[in-house]
């Protein structure tokens, strides 16, 4: 079953050099279409500026598309009413790239993780606290850290806090926008393992955005390659790696530094 059906999606930005100048149009996302099935890990790869993060923002409804439709479970999210959007945002959560800037430095970890519950549910304080403790345990955070601030954690632990916050509403889809690219290889492995464990346990769907093909090869089912706002190729992992069709995909694959002795 297709969870997401993206049809002819476009996002153009107008940039004015000065007040009277005719605006130039930057086509960040230019007419892309793809489907995401339930339970799959769908990776979007490409270099910086190719539109992969804009696509994530469009799926999160942080940005409005210039044109095109995004169907989630058969309904077009671009036409949602505010109430429907609120429901939608409970089901679709995001993990950000930079665990240093995506957590509020003045809030304690417990509050950061509980925020989605405070906004979206009317649970009592005790119920919320129990849920937060449960989810912290799931992602490998210690109970005693409930009252700590983000700056007291390492990069990998902060990314776990971000993951806990995304998981607490039991979403169906998590959009991972470069979740491991700011981390060391050893920490990266821990976070990838955690993401795989959680996906199995909760039957999650990931839209995984990355520029690291090693990581993508390891975790994905389907890979979509973007280049300058267009999708150049979209196929299952084996086909992309064994038999890349597009020149850009080939170039990208040959640029991975391999350890071969």
């Amino acid at each position: 079953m297709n969870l997401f059906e993206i049809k002819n999606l476009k996002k153009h930005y107008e940039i004015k050099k000065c007040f009277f100048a005719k605006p130039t149009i930057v086509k960040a996302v230019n007419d892309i279409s793809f489907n995401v099935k339930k339970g799959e890990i769908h990776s979007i790869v490409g270099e910086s500026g190719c539109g992969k993060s804009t696509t994530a923002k469009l799926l999160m409804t942080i940005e409005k598309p210039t044109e095109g439709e995004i169907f989630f479970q058969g309904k077009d999210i671009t036409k949602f009413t505010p109430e429907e959007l609120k429901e939608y945002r409970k089901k679709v959560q995001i993990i950000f790239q930079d665990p240093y800037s995506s957590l509020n430095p003045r809030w304690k970890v417990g509050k950061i993780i509980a925020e989605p519950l405070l906004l979206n549910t009317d649970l009592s304080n005790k119920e919320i606290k129990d849920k937060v403790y449960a989810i912290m345990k799931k992602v490998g955070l210690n109970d005693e850290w409930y009252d700590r601030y983000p700056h007291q954690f390492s990069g990998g632990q902060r990314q776990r806090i971000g993951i806990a916050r995304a998981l607490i509403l039991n979403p169906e889809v998590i959009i991972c926008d470069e979740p491991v690219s700011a981390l060391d290889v050893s920490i990266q492995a821990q976070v990838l393992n955690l993401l795989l464990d959680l996906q199995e346990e909760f039957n999650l769907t990931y839209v995984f955005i990355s520029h690291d093909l090693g990581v993508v090869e390891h975790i994905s089912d389907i890979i979509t390659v973007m280049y300058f706002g267009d999708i150049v190729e979209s196929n299952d992992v084996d086909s992309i790696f064994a038999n890349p069709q597009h020149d850009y995909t080939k170039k990208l694959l040959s640029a991975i530094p391999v350890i071969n002795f």
Partner: protein
Amino acid sequence: MLLEVKNLLTCFHADEYVNKAVNDVSFEIEEGKTVCIVGESGSGKSITSLSIMGLIEKPGIVEAGEIIFEGTDLLKSGPAHMRTIRGDKIAMIFQEPMTSLNPVYTVGYQLDEVLRLHQSHLNKKERYAKVIDALELVGMPYPEEKYREYPFKLSGGQRQRVMIAMAMACEPKLLIADEPTTALDVTIQAQVLDLMRKLQKEKGTSILFITHDLGVVAQMADEVVVMYRGHIVEKASAKELFKDPRHPYTKALLHSIPSPGKNKRKSRLATVDENIDYLQFPKEIR
């Protein structure tokens, strides 16, 4: 031997607490060779390079050891001597090309500055020609135009090329590259690495390459130094290290990288265990 680092000890003082960021580190770099230092963040690899450049500032201090460059100990020779070497015979490329260029000067001015300081016998015209040459050498398109442009107009890859051009302008004996490609895309990274190898071949420069990316190490290194919590845990030639890693930390680090064809897809990756103190194992220095 171009550079010998012997028993280097660099500490950071905070009240009564002393953090030994670099603890008893020794290695050598031969002429025309590349030595890679790998390790996680906080392992002391950048502090090692800053110690060699004489750029450690308070509360940090180089407390012991020797850094012998072309026969003289840089730690004993004083700041004036260090100034003649830094940027001239030993040059450095920093990690972030976005922050290491001055945003209010043109690219050309900043390149010109290196020559003004270290090759004062050249006149303005000669310096201009040299700067254009340097930009051409690093494969910058339209060097005459780029000379007049400000850093914000360049892409990440182009800025890193400017940094390399700046570092190579005086034809240094030793180039220290501190994570030069970490902020770049894979395709640009491949270009920058190619460029560094090409320059090394042409000019016979030695490179001290600092990175946490073992894939990059495999492409660049002759010798590899693995650092962990300020110590060297393993030192070997690149071939030996990747074929037969001996220290448990090196093994853990190597196994934690997802590499196409090596690990089973979606299998759980090996991780570096935070609860193990890898320093308890004997050092593997070959």
